[in-house]
């Protein structure tokens, strides 16, 4: 596992649920020597709503990394334009080349059983690399 698990890409939008997923990823990284890329997708409303959100995320990521004893070479924040599903899928490609995707389980959708409205289920259908869905 340690050999194949180089980079864990974990989705993070600042929510409590996403923080649970980030914590899970950082714990795994500290046990396996993997790196963590914390991924924030900036949607179409991203600029319209709140252009300063990325700075707050940076703080949260730093604080969490310290907690798990991971230094700046091991944990990076990656902010990318796009919907959460597409941005996470891009993490499997150059230049990130993640070997695992991690997301929180929130947004199982307002309507259970429907793919629509659930990033984790959409991702489960489209991902080309292993995906972990962390329950909150």
């Amino acid at each position, binding site marked *: 596992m340690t050999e194949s698990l180089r980079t864990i890409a974990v989705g993070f939008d600042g929510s409590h649920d996403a923080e649970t997923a980030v914590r899970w990823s950082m714990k795994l990284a500290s046990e396996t020597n993997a790196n963590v890329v914390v991924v924030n*997708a900036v949607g179409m409303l991203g600029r319209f709503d709140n252009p300063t959100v990325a700075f707050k995320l940076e703080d949260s990521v730093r604080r969490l990394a310290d907690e798990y004893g991971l230094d700046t070479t091991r944990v990076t924040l990656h902010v990318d334009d796009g*919907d959460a599903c597409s941005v996470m899928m891009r993490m499997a490609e150059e230049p990130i080349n993640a070997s695992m995707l991690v997301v929180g389980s929130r947004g199982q959708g307002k309507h259970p059983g429907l793919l*629509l409205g659930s990033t984790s289920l959409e991702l489960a259908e489209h991902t080309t690399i292993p995906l972990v869905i962390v329950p909150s």
Partner: protein
Amino acid sequence: MMLVMNGRYEDAGHEEYGHPERPDRAIAALQGVDQLHLESDLRIVNPYAATRAELVRVHEGAYLDELGAFCYAGGGDIDEDTYATYDSWTIAQYAAGSGLAVVRELHEKRDGVGFVVTRPPGHHALRDRAMGFCLLNNIAIAAAELTELGERVLIVDWDVHHGNGTQAIFWDDPNVLYVSTHQSPLFPGSGGAYEVGGSDAIGRTVNLPLPSGATGDVLRQAIDEIAAPTIDEFNPTWVLVSAGFDAHRDDPMADLALTSGDFALLAKTVAGYAPGPGRLAMFLEGGYDLEALRDSVAATLGAVLESPYRPEAPSYGGPGTEIVSNSQVERTAALRIAHEAALREEQQ
């Protein structure tokens, strides 16, 4: 010249409080048309709900089922940007049907220019997924019908966002040439100059990314230098336009610096690619500042219909000329790699 438009259907039910993709947008676009005082030069065709057979040309049946069920269960947020309500499924079907109705009228009569005013917009919608405010890809649904009739369709997408859905749907279709100008970096993050089409359609995708602050002259340079030769070679029999107006300098969603006068020049250029009357239809996509939207619609249609509307002056002097040159280099390199890969495959 005659303007052919879809008749109004009630789209007020597709709304979420505070969301910029709102019913007032369609009203602003219609006010833009009113400013031209077209009277007898305006023909309205009846909208209808596109049928499943028409939709599955570009969307997966399973996705259509999910979307319908999601709406009928009360709707909600599909992703961080995109919402649907109880009424959205019906409204989206009417939006797709409106595009088809306008295109058919033009195709049959071989006369006029089409303008499809519908919500929600469509160019981000993928085969199997809603995103970026879009549920059904209206322009792709119309283009797919035309290619089925044997037409070669040029789609020009001048919305400020890259039309990732349209590009993906026709990625491997040699009968559709997709040309997009868009701000980059910006949502949805795709649309690099190196994206040139799939192995069955190498060169049939042309991406012209522009930096924040780019003005109309830079956009025209990109089209003239990179897209125009490809369009000439493709020799389209039909031209569809993803006419978003969020590249206007007043739009809150992005940072390009176009004026309504730039849209007029752009529309004139694009209309020139149509092989004759009744072979050009424009579909409303984005545009979130209501005044800019209204005036840009008037400028665009005024230029194509040669009506005496006077728009803002075109814009000049913004950044991006170097990026346009780089795009040309990137595209040429990507085309060479794609052709070499195709050749290798052929030899195997």
